[in-house]
């Protein structure tokens, strides 16, 4: 029996809290954020065509962990230094465990907070907590966003950000809905049609 094609691919990074863990998946036309308690899953979708921007902001909480691990390593090492035999081996083993933790922690790189922006929301992505993982995940989804939205060159981007061209990006106010059905139809002004006095 042929194996079903994988619909979702897991992206780097993971987020955990006391009650649930969060993972991010790349779907065919959207990002899927799955928050799981183990017995239920909550889904949040970010469609590639709607993603306006992704921001990575470096944070300093990882430094606190580095300091904590360093203090623990030093503490267990120094206390073990005064002991002999089995006591020393136990304490130095604990120091070794924290040394492994700090190496792993430093290997993961600096910490960050990642946000995804659409026209109507700014959502934090709890899975992307390391700059390295965030960049990796963004690079994985970029081609899909480009496929859904097209691509902008650097010049186009700068051109579109010019205040002079701003009017072309102004959000179009929705045409008011006619409440009364008895009223005669109103012909909306056509932007493409030249003005009568032109």
């Amino acid at each position: 029996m042929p194996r079903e094609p994988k619909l979702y691919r897991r992206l780097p990074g993971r987020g955990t809290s006391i009650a649930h863990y969060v993972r991010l998946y790349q779907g065919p036309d959207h990002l899927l954020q799955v928050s799981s308690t183990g017995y239920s899953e909550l889904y949040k979708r970010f469609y590639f065509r709607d993603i306006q921007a992704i921001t990575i902001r470096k944070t300093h909480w990882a430094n606190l962990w580095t300091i904590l691990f360093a203090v623990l390593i030093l503490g267990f090492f120094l206390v073990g230094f005064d002991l002999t035999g089995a006591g020393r081996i136990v304490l130095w083993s604990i120091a070794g465990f924290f040394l492994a933790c700090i190496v792993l922690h430093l290997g993961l790189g600096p910490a960050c907070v990642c946000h995804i922006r659409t026209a109507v929301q700014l959502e934090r992505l709890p899975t992307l907590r390391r700059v390295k993982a965030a960049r990796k995940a963004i690079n994985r989804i970029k081609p899909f966003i480009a496929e859904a939205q097209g691509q902008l060159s650097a010049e186009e981007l700068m051109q579109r950000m010019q205040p002079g061209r701003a009017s072309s990006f102004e959000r179009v106010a929705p045409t008011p809905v006619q409440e009364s059905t008895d009223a005669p139809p109103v012909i909306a002004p056509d932007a493409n049609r030249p003005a009568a006095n032109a």
Partner: protein
Amino acid sequence: MNGPTVSCTKCNSPVPPDFFQRTDLAPCPACEAALQVEVFPALFKPIAVGKFGETILVDGEASCFYHPQKRATIPCAGCGRFLCAVCDVELNNQHLCPACLETGRQKGKLPQLENKRMLFDSAALSLALLPLLMWPLTLMTAPAAIIVAIYSWRKPSSILPRTRIRAYLAILIAALQMAGWGLLFVGVFSNAFEP
């Protein structure tokens, strides 16, 4: 009026456009937080104007099922009712009415709209395993684990790829517990009735 902007997620001040082309972190001009911003073309796209139904002007024109004064533009792919532009909801190239959309969401027929699923197989496995810590409880939880595993057999599990290994294990472990209880009862009663 200024163009579209992206704000710093710490101080909420607008990020200058030269940030958008950077591939490394750079300090926010307002709060000095190290930022990297990836911008996509959707940022410059105006929000689409909402549709509104056209009023019927000629007698005999097909009208919307929900708005009799509005001209029907399309039939619902689910129930076939005529819909005006207001009631037409497009989802994956299907045109549905709000009622069919709601029904489909409630019955889980539209996976794109599902935002929660229960993992009954995990519940069954926990029901089979966790009471082992207080083993007398397994007298009640083992049958319950089997019932939950069988009940969930045809229910949709996670959206993500997932095997049935948890349900199989739950049934196996619960069956072993029940067999253990059976042997215990047989042993106790056979000893009790021996002369």
